[in-house]
């Protein structure tokens, strides 16, 4: 943060004497904002954003920049906090960025998105999945992550294609997130012709789920999708084994946690499927492999979270749009992303395009399985992404 400030100050000292007021087209850097939690609870993610985006900026600059101009990132810390986020957004606007990547959490993204929309600055979030963010009619707001309904679609495809299930059950825990995911799953399952023969919720304060497990066990289901969190997931798996029931479990991304295996016990957890955003090193696309290798070379560690990779993805999308349109004007860029941007080889897989709300089409989720050693491992057989409607 400090280093960048110093660089910025130095740069302004160097550039100011050149007196080029109207030289936006000349050699001035293109400023791209990165807003994220550099401190606070999510600092781990925000700092990863910075590493990932800086890596690509350096690469772009080595190859001569965009439109012949160098690229520079402007980093602002919102600490994941909505109040700070609004202040950050104002500062971003003042600094003259052409586009902003961020924020990390939906709560922080929301107030900033209002300001960027008002000021007409292209805004892409790598990681905020709250549905309502794209419900406000903003024309220059996009996301490279996927909403929970995409995970639901993926889970249905996995149960349908990989498990060959015909009759399924869905179990949630009454939290907003889990219930949403469960309801979307029901919608897509019925669309896909699967029979949802069981749909119910647990109370996450409970310790004992044997009554509902007994019901599930008697319902004759091919697979059951649990959309809640890992602690209850672990208890469900353990008690399934305790009751001697034969239930094929599949869990949502809130259960993607080794602690679930610990709670369940390896024997009870083995054979359970998990739908989740893949870990960066499990992505097999050449662009992803290349990115992960470059990341390791630069920082001596692999990108730990898929959200880091998606921050890089957001930068690539912006850079690509600028190159293709030859413009840094938000309206032109947004128009391009909505209408002409298609089948781009993204780091997290091909980006089919963005819909009219700015949400990414397709799905990134992957199928994992808890193997015999209790490790959550990438499953060799993945459902094939459907050609998008």
């Amino acid at each position, binding site marked *: 943060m400090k280093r960048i400030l110093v660089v910025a100050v130095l740069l302004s000292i160097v550039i100011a004497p050149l007196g080029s007021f109207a030289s936006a087209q000349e050699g001035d850097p293109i400023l791209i904002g990165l807003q994220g939690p550099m401190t606070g609870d999510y600092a781990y993610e925000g700092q990863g954003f910075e590493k990932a985006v800086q890596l690509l900026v350096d690469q772009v600059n080595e190859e001569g920049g965009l439109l012949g101009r160098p690229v520079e990132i402007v980093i602002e810390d919102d600490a994941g906090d909505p109040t700070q986020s609004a202040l950050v957004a104002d500062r971003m606007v003042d600094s003259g960025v052409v586009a902003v990547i961020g924020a990390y959490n939906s709560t922080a993204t929301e107030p900033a998105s209002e300001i960027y929309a008002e000021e007409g600055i292209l805004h892409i979030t790598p990681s905020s999945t709250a549905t309502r963010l794209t419900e406000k009619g903003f024309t220059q707001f996009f996301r490279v992550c996927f909403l929970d309904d995409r995970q639901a679609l993926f889970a249905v495809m996995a149960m349908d294609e990989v498990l060959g299930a015909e009759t399924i059950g869905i179990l949630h825990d009454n939290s907003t997130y889990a219930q949403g995911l469960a309801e979307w799953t029901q919608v897509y399952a019925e669309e896909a012709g699967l029979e949802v023969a069981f*749909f119910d919720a647990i109370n996450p304060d409970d*310790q*004992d789920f*044997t*009554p*509902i497990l*007994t019901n599930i066990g008697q319902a004759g289901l091919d697979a059951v999708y649990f959309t809640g969190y890992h602690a209850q997931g672990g208890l469900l798996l353990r008690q399934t084994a305790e009751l001697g029931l034969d239930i094929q479990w599949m869990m949502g991304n809130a259960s993607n946690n080794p602690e679930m295996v610990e*709670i369940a016990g390896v024997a009870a957890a083995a054979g359970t499927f998990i739908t989740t955003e893949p870990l960066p090193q499990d992505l097999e696309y050449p662009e992803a492999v290349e990115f992960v290798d470059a990341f390791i070379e630069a920082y001596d560690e692999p990108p730990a979270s898929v959200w880091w990779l998606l921050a890089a993805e957001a930068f690539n999308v912006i850079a690509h749009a600028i190159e293709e349109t030859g413009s840094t004007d938000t309206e032109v860029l947004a128009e391009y992303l909505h209408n002409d941007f298609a089948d781009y080889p993204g780091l997290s897989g091909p980006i089919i395009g963005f819909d009219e709300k700015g949400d990414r089409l397709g799905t990134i989720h992957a199928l994992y399985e808890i193997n015999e050693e209790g490790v959550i491992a990438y499953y060799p057989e993945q459902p094939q992404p459907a050609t998008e409607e």
Partner: protein
Amino acid sequence: METFLQQLINGLTIGGFYAVVALGYTMVYGVLKLINFAHGDMFMWGTLTGWALLTTVFASFTDMDVIAILAASVVVLAFIGVMGMTIERVAYRPLRSAGRLSPIISALGAAFALQAVARNVSDARWRTYPEGLLAELPNVQLTGRVSLSGLQVLMLVTCAAVMIGLYLFVQRTRVGTAMRAVSLDHDVSRLMGINVNRIISLVFFIGPALGGLAGLLIGIYYGSFNFTLGWVFGLKAFIAAILGGIGNIPGAVIGGFILGISETMVVAYGPDIGLADASAWKDAIAYVLLITILIARPTGILGETVAEKV
């Protein structure tokens, strides 16, 4: 029918745990007319202590888990028992003549203190017992699809043994007679030569010790816990005690089983009577049942035989 039997077993298991924890509430209420809100958290401390022992000191006993568990049980009984006596001495006895409200606030304070320490000790994370404890216990396949795990049998037998043992202790021994006397009248008991403070200390040893043992059993049975366990289970057990008639030992047991079985049956048969999300409704329905019973019998199911209070 098979499903019903299976659900009955599930309900009995849950109810058994409620019942043992409810004993602690009911005993203390019997002698002091005090709702010991710290009881649920002492019970959770039993789980926590058991976890600490089985994952460290007794971790090397993995081949002899029966011995490890027996040793852990002894330590938990002693430790939680002494914890109960200490809390009584420090937080309740000085307030004994201060009316009824002050001790309740003090009890809540003790509960929060216990919970806060447990939170820090466990890093507020879910903690897990060693895997495969007592895994050699066979599952009993009753008929077709009804199964009763060895662990469930052990839990039920232990709960039953504790409850019967306690009942006999209170009814048939000299000390038990003294306890019943204290529960009737402190002053008259003192005139009869009973050391009332010592009896109260003993009650505060036995109740929490049994709660702690139940905590250890829950840890073994469910395999994992976090520091909020005492709050949830404690509340249910408290309700079980009221339901059965607080102050009454067989009442606490009956209340525990009624609550456990009725909760289970709501989840089991809720969907059949058109109740979606039966799990979410479970507590609401269980409490409506509680209120109904209390309206019909304000002192609880067995609450009227006042002379038998402990």
